[in-house]
């Protein structure tokens, strides 16, 4: 809509003759859409105050130096960012964040496809089962983290009791720096795989049947149909699910903060938790602001990449 009118205006300034006919197309929105702006204003103002102002303030914090006492000693240029790039803790937290992102997203997508396929099959009781699969995603993160804290308890936890019962050695789930990050990943995979599956199942159910019939006539096997016909057709829906998970995974906070607080030895210190602790435990507001802006940048870049990738897909199919 905007681009059309912009082009028309540009054309009008260059060649006045034929533009007369075009200006009628600029007549604007239909009558019922006129004068509706006042209804949008309150939301705009509130969004500006609550979303944009804090971001701008964070930018200011990151290029100035706020003391723990609350006074701000003023502009310091890029020093907070320079410090960030030299801080091994920062790079560690980037690594942890990306590790969790890649592991969780991969497993959730693969398992989600399998479970989603299962959920898309029409059998009596499907709806009930679908409701059951909603439960992990809708349960408060804090409650989820607390339950898994009990499950992971090294001596009396359910996980180790089950391992012992089937003859395996108990595992120090959250106390071992090499294992803790996997334990955290398991919780996220547990909580969000069904969510992926629900989106994928709905996607599968809305697929047209013709391409599959055509593939059957060509003699394609069930697997080939799923892989070569189903998956490409499913891509638009799958990419939405992947995008939603991506955004949440890069902001990984609640589970880690409740279960390990970033430990042991910073092995689960995601960028988000690191930023929070820098602000509220170490009381370094300006450095924390720089960290949080880098997290925002990471989210925007990765989400932007997925959006671009999605556009390309939708052109192809």
């Amino acid at each position, binding site marked *: *809509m905007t681009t059309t009118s912009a082009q028309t205006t540009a054309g009008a300034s260059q060649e006045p003759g034929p533009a007369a006919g075009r200006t009628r197309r600029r007549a604007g*929105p*239909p*009558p019922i*859409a006129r004068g*509706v*702006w*006042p*209804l*949008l204003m*309150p*939301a*705009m103002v*509130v969004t500006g105050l*609550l*979303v944009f102002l*804090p971001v701008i*303030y*964070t930018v200011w*914090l990151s290029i100035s130096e706020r003391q723990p006492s*609350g006074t701000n000693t003023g502009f310091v240029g890029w020093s907070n960012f320079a410090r960030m790039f030299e801080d091994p803790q920062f790079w560690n937290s980037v690594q942890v964040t990306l590790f969790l992102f890649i592991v969780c997203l991969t497993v959730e997508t693969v398992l989600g496809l399998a479970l989603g396929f*299962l959920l898309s099959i029409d059998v009596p009781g499907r*709806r009930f089962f*679908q*409701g059951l699969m*909603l*439960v*992990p995603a*809708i*349960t*408060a*993160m*804090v*409650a989820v983290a*607390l339950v898994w*804290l*009990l499950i992971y*308890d090294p001596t*009396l936890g359910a996980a180790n*009791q*089950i391992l012992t019962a089937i003859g395996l050695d108990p595992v120090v789930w959250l106390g071992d720096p090499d294992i803790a990050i996997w334990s955290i990943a398991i919780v996220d995979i547990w909580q969000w795989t069904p*969510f992926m599956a629900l*989106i994928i199942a*709905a996607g599968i159910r809305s697929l047209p049947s013709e391409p599959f019939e055509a593939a059957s006539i060509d003699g394609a096997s069930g697997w080939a149909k799923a892989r070569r016909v189903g998956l490409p057709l499913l891509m638009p829906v799958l990419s*939405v699910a992947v995008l*939603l998970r991506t955004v949440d995974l890069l*902001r990984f*906070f*609640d589970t880690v903060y*409740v279960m390990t607080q970033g430990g042991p030895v910073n092995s689960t210190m995601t960028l*988000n938790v690191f*930023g*929070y602790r820098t*602000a509220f435990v170490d009381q370094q*507001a300006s450095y*924390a602001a720089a960290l*949080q*802006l880098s*997290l925002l940048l990471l989210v*925007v870049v990765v989400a932007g990449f997925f959006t671009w990738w999605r556009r390309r897909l939708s052109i192809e199919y």
Partner: protein
Amino acid sequence: MSTDIVTRRRRRFAGVYLGYLIAALIFSGPVLFMWWSAFRHNVDITGSIFDITAPLTFENFTNLFDRFAFLYYIRNSFIIAGGSTLAGLVLGAPAAYVIVRRKMAGLGFLTLLARMAPGVLFVLPLFILSVNIGAPSNTALNFALLISAHLIITLPLCIWLLVPFFEDIPVSLEEAAMLDGCSVWDRFRAVVLPLVLPGLSVAVTLSFIFSWNYFLFALALANNDTLPLPVIAFNFIGQGASDYGGLMAASALISLPALILTIFAQRWLVRGITGGAVK
């Protein structure tokens, strides 16, 4: 021939149900475990998980209310989640209407962007603001701040959820109202709004759950009088590490509203959490 098809169908069903059973065990297991533990004596929780005949108790729950004044924190959660849901709806419904009528797809994307921003980014400025206006020591101000903070979650969510509902309303109804001389506001209030009531109930439900479950803002901004459930449950970890029964009872209470709503509003929930990705 036909019996052959029936058996094959049955065999296929059996496979699907086996898959369902395994998935249900894995994905609802920990939640069931939470509820079960909430009703067990602490002695049994610290014992074997295979001891399913041990007697159950309400003690964990009664303890929460008697010793930790849990009712007070439930009230706090209701104030914060209720307030931010109401505000999100009052601001979001007219905004969603304008977005649909003016076909502002870009703004819809902007609300998605607000969903993407890390909550931590907002917490620090809000915290500094709260210190400057003296919110940490003022209960009413603290509630107002928490409700505003949660509005960052509920407002984009409300808009996002309501847009498809407004899209379904035919323009002709409004045109008729306009011919009768209705103003924009009257048209919105008297013609459009009653038609999106189902949408409003969806938005209320989901905003409430999202706000109720949200942890980060209250963790940083609440004072002792305004703590909502997730934060008080988190604080329990330090206080009584061995009181797993209490922790599980608290977790069960936190997840109760969402669980109830899953039972009654399942269809909408799928749409809501997937953010309209799937209709």
